[in-house]
């Protein structure tokens, strides 16, 4: 088998800071957060008041009424991002390529808004039946299945769920499929739409949601802000992308995965350390080559200090030179979609030579002592970048991109 290095040739995304990659880049470049008052649900009875919603979203712009019947919001986002990524890649489909096309999507909770609505009917309104499309709308693989149907893609397709690391695991596995020859092209990413009342009550109870906004690595950070959306990448063997003259964003040079084996929610640095090291080793890179890290950076007290320690442990002296930003400060924490949206942010940063800032940053924390590019984007060409995801459950996945 030829050396199957993996190129990223297309990307698409939708989230609180934009309805497509171009809009998202404009927000990232200018450090403009999309966090604001929750409007999707009635906040009476909720502790949290703010979220990072996809603003002004109208499914009718993207789908027919019949399609909307079949698509939970999370699957709508998946399709919208996949359409954009495929269009962006400029791939010319043939029957043969369609049969060798993989789809790997991540989602932490799938179509829970649909399930939540059905349960409200049954438990609150005393109805004795739920809508018959509840199952096909709720299943976590609905996004992958609808992408497959819309584009006629017939290769390996599946969805995995590792909470906040879902997308990075999905992109990492899609990379392995391309490397191994299991697929000739892959659509990989994730989507999430967790802003339904029942889910928000559950997040309230976790007591990790900030009452104001998301201030990653800042001393007065008070927690995370929930977001929603999707991100998708098109991956191809590098030689194939070059042969067809495709625009290549970067090489997806490596992925590293690990489990903390520690605690179901409490972060620990040893697992992230091993995932970052594994990503670097897989990519054949040294820490000194990394100019930018798109951090997991949730804005919780625990994560940000732990992630800082993990980066310091792996990078040593090189930690002084790497820029670390959390774009969750702008697009919120989109859970299973987070890694994919952040991969898109990382690739756009590499393409444009501008590092998006950590927004809402007010004061340095002694426990968070890296270069977080506070509030204002920074022009910088980087040779390589990492994108971190560390999930509840202690499951970690880190992607390594290399400029070409």
């Amino acid at each position, binding site marked *: 088998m030829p050396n199957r290095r993996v190129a990223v040739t297309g990307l698409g995304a939708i989230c609180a800071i934009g309805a497509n990659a171009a809009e998202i880049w404009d927000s990232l470049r200018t450090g403009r957060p999309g966090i604001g008052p929750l409007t999707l649900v009635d906040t009476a009875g909720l502790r949290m008041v703010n979220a990072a919603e996809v603003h002004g979203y109208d499914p009718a712009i993207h789908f*027919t*009424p*019949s399609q909307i*019947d*079949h698509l939970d919001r999370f699957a709508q986002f998946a399709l919208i991002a996949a359409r954009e990524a495929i269009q962006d890649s400029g791939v010319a489909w043939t029957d043969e390529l369609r049969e060798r096309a993989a789809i790997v999507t991540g989602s932490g909770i799938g179509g829970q808004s649909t399930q939540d609505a059905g349960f409200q009917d049954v438990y609150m309104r005393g109805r*004795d*039946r739920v*809508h*018959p*499309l509840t199952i*096909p709308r709720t299943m976590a693989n609905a996004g992958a299945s609808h992408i497959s149907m819309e584009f006629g893609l017939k290769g390996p397709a599946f969805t995995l769920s590792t909470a906040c690391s879902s997308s990075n695991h999905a992109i990492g596995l899609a990379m392995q499929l391309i490397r191994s020859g299991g697929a000739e092209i892959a659509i990989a990413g994730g989507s999430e739409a967790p802003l339904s009342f029942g889910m928000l009550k559950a997040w309230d109870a976790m007591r990790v949601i900030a009452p104001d906004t998301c201030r990653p690595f800042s001393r007065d950070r008070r927690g995370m802000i929930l977001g929603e959306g999707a991100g998708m990448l098109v991956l191809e063997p590098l030689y194939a992308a070059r042969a067809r003259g495709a625009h290549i964003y970067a090489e997806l040079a490596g992925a590293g995965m690990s489990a903390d084996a520690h605690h179901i929610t409490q972060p620990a640095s040893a697992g992230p350390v091993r995932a970052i090291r594994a990503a670097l080793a897989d990519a054949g890179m040294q820490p000194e080559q990394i100019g930018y890290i798109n951090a997991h950076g949730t804005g919780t007290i625990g994560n940000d200090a732990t992630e800082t320690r993990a980066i310091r442990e792996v990078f040593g002296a090189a930690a002084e030179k790497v820029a670390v930003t959390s774009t969750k400060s702008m697009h919120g924490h989109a859970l299973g979609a987070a890694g994919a949206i952040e991969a898109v942010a990382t690739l756009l940063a590499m393409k444009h030579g501008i590092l998006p800032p950590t927004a809402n940053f007010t004061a340095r924390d002694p426990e968070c002592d890296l270069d977080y590019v506070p509030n204002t984007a920074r022009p910088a060409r980087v040779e390589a970048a990492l994108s971190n995801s560390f999930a509840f459950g202690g499951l970690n996945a880190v992607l390594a991109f290399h400029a070409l």
Partner: protein
Amino acid sequence: MADILEEKVFSTLASVKHIPQEKITIDSSLADLGFDSLDTISLLFELENAFQISIPDERARSIRTVREIVEGVRALKNGNSLKPSSPG
């Protein structure tokens, strides 16, 4: 001439399938109107809501035409036996 019940069945069919109501006649089959199996279970759900009835599975499986739906709903509304119409 369509009575109120028939009219309501037609409007339910139209809204489930997102088609103009004028396309529907009493002699249309669900297949003619483009209903697949998933559309059909959505239709049954909406009919049950609209008419406050419960359509048993064995009856649901035998429905093929708009006429059968109208007759079936009327029978259920009238509290008639829930047995399926004469076996084929």
